[in-house]
């Protein structure tokens, strides 16, 4: 049983995670300027990239990867469940309003 999340990994991996986060940010900026997708799909792509960045921050910087499985799964599943509920309630309705042409 540990109190502070002590682990044997080196500091090097945190620099790699930092670099990956900066690289993903650069990809997002590039996508924003290219406007490759329509707004609805652009939002989904950017949200997907944001979820990947958040997962890296939560797992490595917040050390959730090194906590016991119960804490990991309880936190991740509860927050993901809430966001899925919010997403599936609101986003289809937003798309419906767009198609109806209601302003």
């Amino acid at each position: 049983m540990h109190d502070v999340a002590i682990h044997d990994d080196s500091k090097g991996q945190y620099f790699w995670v930092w670099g990956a986060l900066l690289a993903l940010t650069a990809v997002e900026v590039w996508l924003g300027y290219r406007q490759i997708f329509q707004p609805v799909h652009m939002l989904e792509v950017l949200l997907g990239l944001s979820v990947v960045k958040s997962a890296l921050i939560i797992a490595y910087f917040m050390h959730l990867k090194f906590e016991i499985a119960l804490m990991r799964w309880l936190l991740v599943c509860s927050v993901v469940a809430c966001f899925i509920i919010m997403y599936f309630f609101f986003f289809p309705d937003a798309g419906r309003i767009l198609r109806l042409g209601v302003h």
Partner: protein
Amino acid sequence: MADATLEHNAVGHGIPGAYEAPLFGAYSKKVGMWLFLASDSLTFGALLVAFSYNRISNPAWPTPFAVESITNASIMTACLLSSSLTMVLAVFAAQRKDRAWTRNWLLATMAFGTAFIVLHGREWTHLIHEGMTPFTNPWAPSVPQFGGTFFTLTGMHMLHVTIGVIYLGVIALRKKFLPILAALWIAGYFLIPTDSVFHYGIHVLGIGLIVATVILFLKPKDYDAHDVEVSGLYWHFVDLVWMFIFPLVYLMSTKIV
């Protein structure tokens, strides 16, 4: 009920007595902070979903953020990501009981956080000078909610960053931070022009000063690795929220010439 308890050596507290095994394998301060962050993530989640809903369902949504704004926001993102890295290094230093480097990395984290706030304040001032208010905007009069959603979302986040910087200052410097915070508050009040929204917004530092004073005098303690780790959790959460705000607010409203 010996099988339901652990000897104190097993949990490493060094305090005589037997303790029950913690449910989540972590000390109570950490569990408490995770619970708070879970609730705060729902607050930001609701704001982000409401913003996204407005953005998708409104084809006339303005796109006012030109290259300068996106560059500014990208630098702000880099500042926050770098501050998360320095926060991790502060936690490592605290774990090996290196007080000097714990303080140094915490101060570096605060510096990046302050840079973020200053850049964001400049962005707000620029948009307000262009005519944006919580109720109107000059780019799309048919979308009055653009200003309100922008200022609410980014203002809420800026408030969290400000509180985070004060929190880290208390952990890093303890009572020595109080006169620094007081000086920043007073200097900000007199130096920021009265027509700027931050002339009144600077009073957040005054409220922070009162709360920090009460905490530091009511419960003086030597902050240890646990406290640094818990403050780090809050700081990373603030960074995490910006990972959603930056693309949704700025990149979805980029001015493409």
